[in-house]
């Protein structure tokens, strides 16, 4: 009794599992069907378009200053936009998820249709049967005296047109088959595969790629890259800047920014390159781009003429001062550069810096006289109330001011870009095949026409550009007739049966 109940229950379990398996399978099949349908593809693409467009109209955080964002939207609106991710649409999970869904739908649609296309591609239809010949739209018939002669003439005609033919053996004779560019049937899969390759590269870069900024002054080296969120990233080697510069046009717009860079790996200098915009330095998958150039607002070198004032012994000389550097003017006097203000403004008898731009520079030097044991504060230009230039033993004429410069390098690591470029090249090839390479097929079959005469049935198909193909077909038929030196006979006589009885 118990055994029976146990057995029944076991049977029920098995049935339940079978039902579940079936419904799971049918559920997964349904998902597959939906995913591979064109409608799904279209809906997904429309969604991508809508959200991408939204991303161009709504200000996006990665590209806009937060001040501008706050100026453009009310606080409540901005909170809402931030919450829904609309301020950084292209990096949200749901957008990336949508792109992945699009990829999946392309894969599903291709996989579903591929077996048929492959069958079509791998097994060429070389010998057309009766029913096929009956309904083919592009066909003609030419009466011939001798089957062998006719077929040879056709072969020569095709050769003349630049098409290769193949003899297909039938029961008692042979027919001709000529085809060109069968690959064209696969073209659309090449295009979609290339699209998937591009998406793959893009997704890899979104996940594993990064970009940062590196600022170097000439003579310095660094392996710290500043990321967009402010954090620093250490790279496995250092970049040293050996020089940088800018060329401008007459009106001041930049013409050329250049930097002489060197790669220092493990203490050794590996390579050097002078980079400009559009021509980066590449090493170990990291790319360094010339992005900007600017002045640090700090003094590099001050060159001036020092002239002894009345009553001072000594000769006029040209001296060069770096920050905090002391230079002896004569046995007794020395001068030290202590301050450099790029953009000075005076307030309440004190000198302040208004900005870092070298707009209105001022330098502060201290002239020390050992004998008199006195120091004089010299300011160039003279600042009334602050400077003591009158009591300085030397007067100074500024000759040249070299301020510090920096070069701004954009650093990027994008491992997926090779997939993207490969995809682009593949797509170019694929599109060329889709639009410009036509799969053409021709058949020439010896038949017996309605009046019992031996004739050549000629047929052809093309998978695109049908009107151009019709022209080509006509020319081939004319060429065959020329080879046969025959008059044209009536075209399409679908009732003719083949001599070989197939």
């Amino acid at each position, binding site marked *: 009794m118990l055994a029976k109940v146990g057995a029944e229950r076991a049977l029920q379990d098995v049935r339940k599992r079978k039902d579940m398996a079936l419904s799971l399978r049918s559920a997964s099949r349904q998902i597959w069907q939906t995913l591979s349908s*064109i409608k799904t593809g279209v809906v997904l693409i429309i969604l991508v378009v809508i959200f991408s467009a939204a991303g161009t109209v709504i200000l996006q955080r990665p590209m806009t200053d937060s001040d501008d964002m706050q100026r453009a939207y009310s606080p409540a609106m901005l909170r809402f936009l931030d919450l829904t991710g609309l301020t950084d649409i292209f990096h949200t999970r749901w957008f990336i998820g949508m792109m992945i869904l699009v990829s999946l739908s392309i894969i599903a649609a291709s996989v579903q249709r591929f077996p048929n296309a492959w069958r079509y591609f791998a097994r060429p239809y070389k010998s057309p049967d009766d029913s096929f010949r009956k309904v083919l739209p592009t066909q003609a018939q030419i009466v011939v005296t001798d089957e062998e002669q006719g077929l040879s003439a056709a072969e020569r005609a095709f050769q003349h047109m630049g098409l290769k033919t193949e003899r297909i053996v039938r029961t008692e004779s042979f027919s001709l088959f000529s085809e060109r560019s069968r690959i064209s049937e696969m073209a659309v899969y090449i295009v979609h595969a290339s699209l998937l390759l591009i998406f793959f590269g893009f997704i890899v870069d979104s996940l594993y790629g990064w970009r940062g900024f590196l600022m170097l002054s000439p003579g310095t080296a660094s392996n710290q890259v500043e990321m967009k969120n402010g954090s620093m990233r250490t790279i496995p080697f250092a970049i040293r800047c050996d020089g940088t510069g800018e060329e401008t046009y007459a009106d001041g717009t930049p013409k050329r920014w250049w930097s002489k860079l060197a790669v220092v790996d493990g203490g050794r200098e590996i390579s050097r390159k002078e980079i400009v915009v559009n021509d980066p330095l590449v090493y170990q998958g990291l790319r360094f781009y010339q992005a900007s150039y600017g002045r640090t607002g700090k003094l590099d070198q001050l060159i001036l003429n020092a002239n002894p004032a009345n009553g001072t012994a000594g000769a006029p000389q040209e001296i060069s001062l770096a920050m905090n550097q002391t230079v002896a003017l004569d046995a007794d006097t020395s001068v030290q550069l202590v301050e450099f203000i790029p953009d000075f403004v005076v307030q309440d008898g004190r000198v302040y810096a208004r900005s870092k731009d070298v707009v209105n520079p001022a330098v502060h030097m201290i002239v020390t006289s050992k004998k008199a044991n006195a120091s004089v504060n010299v300011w160039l230009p003279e600042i009334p109330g602050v400077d003591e230039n009158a009591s300085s033993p030397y007067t100074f004429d500024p000759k040249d001011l070299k301020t510090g410069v920096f070069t701004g390098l954009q650093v990027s690591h994008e491992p997926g870009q090779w997939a*993207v470029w490969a995809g682009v090249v593949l797509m170019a090839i694929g*599109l060329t095949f889709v639009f410009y390479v036509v799969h053409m097929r021709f058949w020439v079959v010896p038949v017996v026409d309605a009046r019992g005469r031996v004739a050549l049935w000629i047929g052809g198909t093309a998978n695109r550009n049908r009107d151009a193909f019709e022209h080509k077909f006509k020319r081939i038929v004319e060429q065959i007739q020329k080879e046969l030196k025959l008059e044209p006979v009536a075209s399409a006589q679908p009732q003719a049966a083949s001599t070989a009885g197939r």
Partner: protein
Amino acid sequence: MARAKVEQHPATGTTMVVMVGLGIAFLLFIAFLNVVKSGNILSEANLLYAALVFYAGAGALYLGFGVTGTDAYIKFASLMTWAGLLANTGAVAHRWYEAGHPPFASIYEMLLSFVWTLAALTLIAEKRYGVKVIGTVTMPVAIVGVILMQLLPSEVRPLVPALQSTWLHVHVTLAMLAYAACALSFALAMMFLIQDKVKTEIFLAATSIFTVGIYAAVLTRFEKWGGFNVIAWDAENKAEVFVSRGVRLFVTIPDLGWLMLLVFAAVLTPLVLYVLSRVKKNEGLLAIADRAVFISILLQSLALVFFLVRVRSGQYPSLDAEGLYATSLSASPFILSALVGGIFANLLYLLLLWRRADLERLLPDADALDRITYKTICIAFPLLTLMIAAGAYWANRAWGSYWNWDPKETWAAITWLVYAGYLHMRITRGWRGRRAAYFAILGFAVVMFTFFGVTYLLPGLHAYA
């Protein structure tokens, strides 16, 4: 019945010829005076002016065909287009020589290239595809382009570092070719709709909606007391006036707003009448709608003239700053093109209304136009693909990243998707005829937004053009 009687053209054939002839002579005379003044015959400005004159002549002759139905006008219009293309080529060559690089670096230069490509493609379409009246659509676009160029700052600007790259030239050339092919496909799709016996009143509705849209956009500059806001212009520096970084200074031209509002009402009328005629099933209203279109053209021209006059003379107050400021047509290129574009669209509608039978006679049949549209898009799509790829490669070398979701890039991708959609629907779903034509028209609308809308309405890295 009422619609068949719209033969009320204001001018006969000879009057039109005389008018066009006088107009061209007048314009060439002005050009001659300019040459005498500057002593320089083959300057770029003169060549461009000559191109404008010839394209305008061609456009006028195409429209003249609309008024008189004389086929010979089409032939002369074609010749004028050739002459215009010649002058345009001269201008391009001159610009290239002066600047030391192909004309691609500013919106002035890009318009120069675009107009040239449009004229060249028009002539190719006429010769190769036998679509002889395609100039009726492309010439007005070319004219708008050249007018815009007269207003934009045209100094040869030296190229900033990011623009000094061969990939730039490749990318921009591809863009110009692709967009011109898309423009052509738009013209062909329109012609298909004509040959496919789409009812003239549908064109009425479409033209009306388009013009209403234009004036709605123009009216965003309407100021409370009837003024019209335009951007102030600094004539000395030839640039817009800025209040602070990125914020432009607007001045208010008094009363112009009222005129724009009036014209808006005038262009809304045909649309309202069309809707009423559908609701009330009264065909007679359509005849009134057509007259309303004619009147709206006159009013639109009035608005254009007043706009030109007020903008070019006088200083105006601003709500954001003290004092009076001048403005210039260069500060409002979009308003100007919108006004001119609206007039042209309505004139083209009248051409269709008055000369539909002649057009149908001159154009290839619907099937052929459908196939030619498809073929044109088969050319445009690979060009679009390559353009995006070249742009991505250039961006990668210049800014370190091949895709930034910059508005121009994003909209270029959207354009690509729309045309990919067209091809899919055609190849996989067998969409032909009207549905395909509407899709092609949608595609071109997106192209126009990508080219113009993004530059002037949306911010981004693509600040160059």
